[in-house]
């Protein structure tokens, strides 16, 4: 468990650095993926809602402190993303790639939708909410997240499997 925790922590640190220095040329339609959210979902699908909540909340808080604008918001949303996705692990996930993609897509849309809603709603009111950010930012980001999730999930699950085999822990 300690090795796995160390592995997850290293991944989070690495992804935070990549996320905050994400280069322009890697953006698709002007949008970058949310690597931390994708990692949270992958970990939650592999290890359940508790691990998902800790990773989502912890990484979100670190992101808030590093580069975010409102301390605690990413942590809160990340934690719930981990909890909700972790529940899918319990009920339907059996290393199914479609469950992974659907989870990443749905969580990304809800997560970014909530970030947009909370910011617009509390500042300028519901009247200024338009469809443009959904089409221009949220959907491309959700698709980008899905593509990235295939790589992240493949890597994380392979390493986690090795750690579990070595330490004799079976899920």
């Amino acid at each position, binding site marked *: 468990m300690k090795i796995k925790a160390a592995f997850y922590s290293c991944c989070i640190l690495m992804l935070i650095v990549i996320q905050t220095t994400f280069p322009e040329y890697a953006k698709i339609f002007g949008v970058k993926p949310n690597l931390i959210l994708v990692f949270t979902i992958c970990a939650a699908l592999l290890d359940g809602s508790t691990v998902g909540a800790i990773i989502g909340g912890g990484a979100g808080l670190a992101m808030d402190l590093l*580069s975010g604008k409102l301390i605690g918001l990413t942590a809160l949303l990340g934690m719930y993303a981990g909890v909700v996705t972790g529940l899918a692990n319990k009920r339907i996930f059996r290393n199914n790639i479609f469950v992974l993609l659907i989870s990443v897509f749905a969580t990304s849309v809800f997560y970014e939708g909530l970030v947009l809603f909370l910011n617009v709603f509390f500042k300028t009111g519901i009247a200024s909410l*338009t469809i443009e950010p959904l089409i221009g930012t949220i959907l491309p980001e959700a698709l980008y997240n899905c593509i990235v999730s295939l790589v992240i999930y493949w890597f994380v699950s392979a390493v986690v499997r090795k750690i579990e085999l070595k330490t004799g822990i079976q899920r």
Partner: protein
Amino acid sequence: MRNLFKKKGFVLILVTVVLIMVIGIASSFKSTSGFLGSIFSVPLTPVQKFFTSVGQKVDDFISFFKDPKAIKDENEALKIIVAQLQDENRELESLRNKNEELRNALNLKKLFADYVIIGANVIAKDPGNWFDVFKVDVGSRDKVQINQPVVSSATGLVGRVLEVQLTSSKILAIIDEDSVVDGWIEKENGGSVRVSGDLSLTDSGLCNMDYIPLSVDVSVGDVIETSGLGGLYPKGIIIGTVAEIKNSDDEYGRYAIIKPAVDFKKLQEVFVLTRNEEAEGEPGEN
């Protein structure tokens, strides 16, 4: 009580309440993350610096090979321009001395005589797609303070310091929806306006200009500068140019889209303007 803490649902609610309180406190006091942020920021800043510089190098490399035909055409065009420039250069040589004088009158230091200019490199950008906050490699140890204005080398307004940590600071760009700048339409019979960021324009690197006085004849291409009102930004920093004028339902009847003087997608170096307290205290000294 112990059993209560063992229940996941209770812990989840507890953490949620704590985080909501943190959000509330953080939104009231902008500098709350200063100390805590430094704990993460100080060790990560050099790593972020490294990744940003590697990213920029790869970006340059990729753009070189992106479109060879365009590069070839550009090369041909540049050859013609070089020939023209060589002619112009000889002419300009004679004007060099005069130009030097004018430059002295217009350069960055002269324009901001009351300020100490701190150069900084952009080391990290906002992790999400909604805001335009970025991090630079100067912080409280370089005497950077909250709300200090930030400009680019071309004296275009970049934004202001949002938060200061020990070795780094967060800069709120003028295209961020939270940014509001008092502007001035730089022309005869110009007027005071408000330039603010807009969520739908942030991604295209543009911002909004409203409160345009009815008496002012604003047109596309007009230069917008800081007005100096409010005391946050010194007067005369170029914000951008009017790109489009649109009709609105409010009492002013129109608003404009501004193309900032700064290209935020390519921004690598900025200058933080800090008030020169020594010069203010001792007027005789420079």
